[in-house]
């Protein structure tokens, strides 16, 4: 097991290097000049060139990329062109916020999506089933930025029970922290809740047709136990993979949500950096995001093995 984890982490290194290489190359192709942004509108060509030299952007792309990798080897992600801090510092400030937002959204997704799917599958075509399928359809079809705007209108203009923007760190005020995450996490999670409910429902319907479910019933186990124990563990095997994918999508979805709700997370950091061509922040942010997804995949695979005894990662 330990060996498996180590192997997977080592295998991730080339992946991450390639991701950063591709990201850097693409940014190079996108028109736009950070020096022009910093120098401001109306700056002369000479002024812009001066800023460019200050930032070291006058050197060739290959040299700058090489330097970046050398820094990376020392654990240094470089300095932001726009923000007055190192990239590492900027990311460290933002990561917990995004993790809190997408973590809460993931919790909502799993705690609502799985039970809703199970309930629907237990009584196919009943009103519960119809309700779940309808809600899931709405969740899947409503764009989350539109949902966010509706929620902001509802809670900001009509009633004001919940904050419609901004973020309060947990350490500052746990209650306000939770309140500040309610609307954003609902906006973020709704699509995933719908998807997960539908997939859980379909998987449960499939699993309930298995012979071992009939065996469990023939043994006289109460229906609740047949579903919650025998069926559910089998349902969770594919569903865990889906949850992993969901979490990845929640992380990327947070770019929009953080912007709409003015939440200072990784998503907004990256979005701003892209608009202002803050190359080091983009590079570092993508690296951290990719590394998170690699770790996420590893966790999913470990959970998968924990649920399904037929899967083993030990080398024979």
């Amino acid at each position, binding site marked *: 097991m330990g060996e498996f984890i180590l192997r997977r982490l080592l295998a991730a290194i080339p992946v991450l290097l390639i991701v950063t290489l591709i990201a850097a190359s693409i940014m190079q192709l996108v028109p736009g000049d950070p020096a022009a942004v910093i120098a401001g509108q109306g700056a002369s060509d000479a002024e812009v060139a001066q800023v460019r030299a200050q930032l070291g952007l006058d050197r060739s792309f290959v040299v700058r990329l090489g330097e970046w990798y050398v820094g990376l080897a020392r654990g240094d992600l470089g300095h932001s062109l726009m923000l007055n801090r190192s990239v590492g510092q900027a990311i460290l400030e933002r990561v917990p916020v995004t993790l809190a937002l997408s973590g809460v959204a993931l919790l909502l997704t799993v705690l609502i999506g799985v039970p809703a799917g199970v309930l629907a599958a237990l009584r196919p075509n009943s009103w519960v089933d119809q309700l779940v399928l309808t809600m899931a359809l709405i969740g899947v079809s409503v764009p989350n930025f539109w949902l966010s705007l509706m929620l902001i209108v509802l809670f900001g203009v009509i009633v004001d029970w919940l904050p419609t923007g901004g973020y309060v760190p947990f350490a500052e005020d746990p209650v306000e922290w939770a309140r500040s995450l309610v609307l954003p996490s609902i906006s973020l999670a709704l699509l995933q809740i719908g998807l997960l409910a539908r997939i859980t429902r379909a998987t449960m319907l499939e699993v309930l047709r298995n*012979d071992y479910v009939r065996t469990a019933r*023939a*043994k*006289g186990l*109460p229906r609740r136990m047949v579903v919650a124990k*025998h069926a559910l*563990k089998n349902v969770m095997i594919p569903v865990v993979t889906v949850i992993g994918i969901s979490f990845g999508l929640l992380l990327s979805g947070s770019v929009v949500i953080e912007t709409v709700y003015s939440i200072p997370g990784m998503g907004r950091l990256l979005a701003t950096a892209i608009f202002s061509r803050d190359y080091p922040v983009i590079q570092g942010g993508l690296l951290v995001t990719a590394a998170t997804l690699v770790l996420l995949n590893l966790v999913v695979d470990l959970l998968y093995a924990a649920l399904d*005894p037929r899967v083993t990662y030990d080398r024979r």
Partner: protein
Amino acid sequence: MTEPLLSVEGLRVVFGQGAREQVAVDGVSFQVAAGETLGIVGESGSGKSLTALAVLRLVPSPPGRIAGGRVRFEGRDLAGISEREMERVRGARIGMIFQEPMSALNPVFTVGEQVAEALRVHEGLGRREASARALALLQRVGIADAPRRMKQYPHELSGGMRQRVMIAAALACRPSLLIADEPTTALDVTIQAQILALLRELQREMGMAVVLITHDLGVVAQMVDRVVVMYGGRVAEEGTVEQVFGRPSHPYTRLLLESIPSLDHDRDRLPTIPGMVPTLAELPPGCRFHPRCPQAMAVCRERAPDAVTVEPGHRAACFALPQIHPVEAQSGAGA
């Protein structure tokens, strides 16, 4: 005569609704006395499994449902009790094992757990007690190295071992009736014999009754006290093995027995007789067997024959019965 352990009367199982309703089990009746072994034979699709599942109220529903009949077991009508009470019958008073030991065990729980859980549910045993009992059961059904096997998962066991696990789980609470639906069909011939021998031993030891559904007429001849021959969802003939095999009355039974190959190499399948097995949708009116029956008469196409007593304890449903005991040839509650 004391009341039989299990008495099935006029059982009907149907699929679908309204005009598209199809009858899969059509007025099946039979009885099983305590400690007795009843064999049920019949071609694929004749309704054997559904009959067994209906006794436990486990017919897959939807699309199927029990549409009529009575199932009396240990003095109670199982159709009338609540699902809760039914759960206390399943696994505790009636055990069931299935054809496919491969898929009948849950792949994600250890075999020890799957044997122990019935004990926990029905006898309220704690985890350790149940586990100790499960170990003893696994040893009893002949699983070598049981302490290690307990902790293994079904995919780590051979087919024969898995079927032994199924038997241990089904018998954990010492039921008075075991329903075995083709318990050896999926296994190698040598393993088949071992499993059947084990079942017989356990039956004697526990004094339970067994309903053995099988394709193997040889097994029926060896293991069974009485036999029910099913065709097209109905009982064609019923009696002791001696009666049914020695003096077959129904044309279908006779054809079955004649078509047994002299070498019993292909025992997994019921011997085949000419003609096609009808699907539910194309079951003919009248006697279901008439398209394939060498003795079919005009009346066979119009009406379904009632079961008639040919001799005490021996019934058959056919218009062309040899009149062995004409006096007793009355429509039959005699069995």
